[in-house]
């Protein structure tokens, strides 16, 4: 086995194209995870016990099943049903594309984890803060938006940041539904030339590079905001 530099250079454009999809899927999925996770958390505190319990069991179910079956389920079962409807709402997205299913499944899967993170952050806000809100007579919505969530989210920024990196590392699972992300791209070039050493090694290197860069960014964000 000898490293072929010429070959490595030739396959780089394809691999970088795959990396582009990996990053897009991770970032969009992360946005979904952050927003939807907060929605779960707030619904789990809803006054209606039916809502609370439903959300509790649905998120518990999603968290306790592996990502790959969820990808299949989204891609082959759910999206064909709802894609036309979604398409009329957001006409610029083709929901039949594997990448769309991948982003949504990744986001929903991780939203059940971020929900737990938010929950812990909210539980960590001292009782005195709630009591001060009552003493000031602040309306419920303001208590959340102005006092509780700003404090809770700051505290969990490091944990939320770690989930970004975890999602990035889980994104190769999208190849199960034929998303041409980085790992899938390396398979495809490898299959053409039957030389797998270079593409798969480069995949590893690219993952390390992006992970390290995002860790540094997350740590910066942490230092900037996580000090209350």
């Amino acid at each position, binding site marked *: 086995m000898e490293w072929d530099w010429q070959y490595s250079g030739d396959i780089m454009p394809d691999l970088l194209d795959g990396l582009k999809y990996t990053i897009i899927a991770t970032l969009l999925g992360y946005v979904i995870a952050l927003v939807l996770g907060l929605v779960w958390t707030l619904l789990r505190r809803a006054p209606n016990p039916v809502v609370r319990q439903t959300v509790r069991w649905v998120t518990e179910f999603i968290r306790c099943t592996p990502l790959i079956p969820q990808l299949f389920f989204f891609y082959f079962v759910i999206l064909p049903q709802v894609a036309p409807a979604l398409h009329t709402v957001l006409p610029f997205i083709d929901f039949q594309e594997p990448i769309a299913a991948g982003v949504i499944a990744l986001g929903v899967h991780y939203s059940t984890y971020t929900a737990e993170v938010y929950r812990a952050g909210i539980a960590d806000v001292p009782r005195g803060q709630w009591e*001060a809100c009552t*003493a*000031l*007579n*602040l*309306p419920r919505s*303001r208590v959340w938006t102005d006092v509780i969530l700003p404090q809770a989210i*700051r505290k969990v920024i490091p944990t939320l940041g770690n989930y970004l990196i975890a999602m990035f590392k889980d994104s190769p699972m999208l190849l199960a539904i034929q998303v041409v992300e980085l790992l899938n791209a390396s398979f495809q070039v490898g299959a053409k030339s039957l030389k797998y050493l270079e593409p798969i090694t480069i995949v590893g290197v690219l993952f390390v590079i992006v992970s390290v860069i995002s860790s540094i960014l997350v740590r910066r964000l942490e230092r900037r905001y996580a000090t209350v």
Partner: protein
Amino acid sequence: MPQSDTAPESSEPKDEAPAPSLEKATGRTGADGVPAGKDPKPIDAAPLPKGGAPGITFEKVVKRFGSNVVLRELDFTVAPGERVTLIGPSGSGKTTILRLLMTLETLNEGVIWIGDQTLWHMDRGGKRVAANQKHLHEMRKQVGMVFQQFNLFPNMNVLRNLTEGPRRVLGVSQDEAVERARELLELVGLADKLNAHPTQLSGGQQQRVAVARALAMQPKVLLLDEVTSALDPELVVGVQDLLRDIANASDITLLCVTHEMNFARDISNRVLMFDQGQIVEEGPPEQIFGEPSEQRTRDFLQAVLAS
């Protein structure tokens, strides 16, 4: 997280000096944040509540935590504008009384009146029913509270801590809220801390801001829950003097729980001695601290003063 009592960025001593006296007669001018040579605002100009303070009545109030009965059929009345201190051993139910009035705990039995309105009940078709959130919200507008642990919002600067309530609850305009916040900060001797964050302030300064924040809501009843217990000893007197001056200058109805007997003597018209959820003895401070008639009161005062 323990509160540091030293402001990290300042080397000058804070809070050791008494608060700038608010009484013109004494002519004292400020330490602690008020620039030298600048007279603190005369107290009459300060935005303190005037007039219309309601009285408070407890009728057979019962409060239980599980099987533990904290208040048992408690009856007492506070006159409009009266300043009452609650003393007694811990667990005697003093703080629970304040927390019931601030609606931080729910009432089990009995009726609490603020003025001529019931706090925990409302009238529906001539029948007295449990209060809904809207009723509680309206009733709470009359009541303000200062906590032992200050409970300032650490995600907001001092100004925003003071304007948040007036803007979101009283519907005051931003400009007006800021103006009033400035006046109140001047009153508590922290005019220069407008943009500071609570974590940058000493305990004494945080508690002054908390007092200003409570006053910004223009309460007619003010509840002080062991407001100096979390402060370093040398900071206690400054905050107490400030509260005494505010009490003297306003018509607010004041309920105060404290273990500082000098403060109780200073601030109140009447002292209630509690034990096991009942009033053991009551009277003007001179009587309670001078010649208490109950053995239980004598024992308690001896224990407190010995420590």
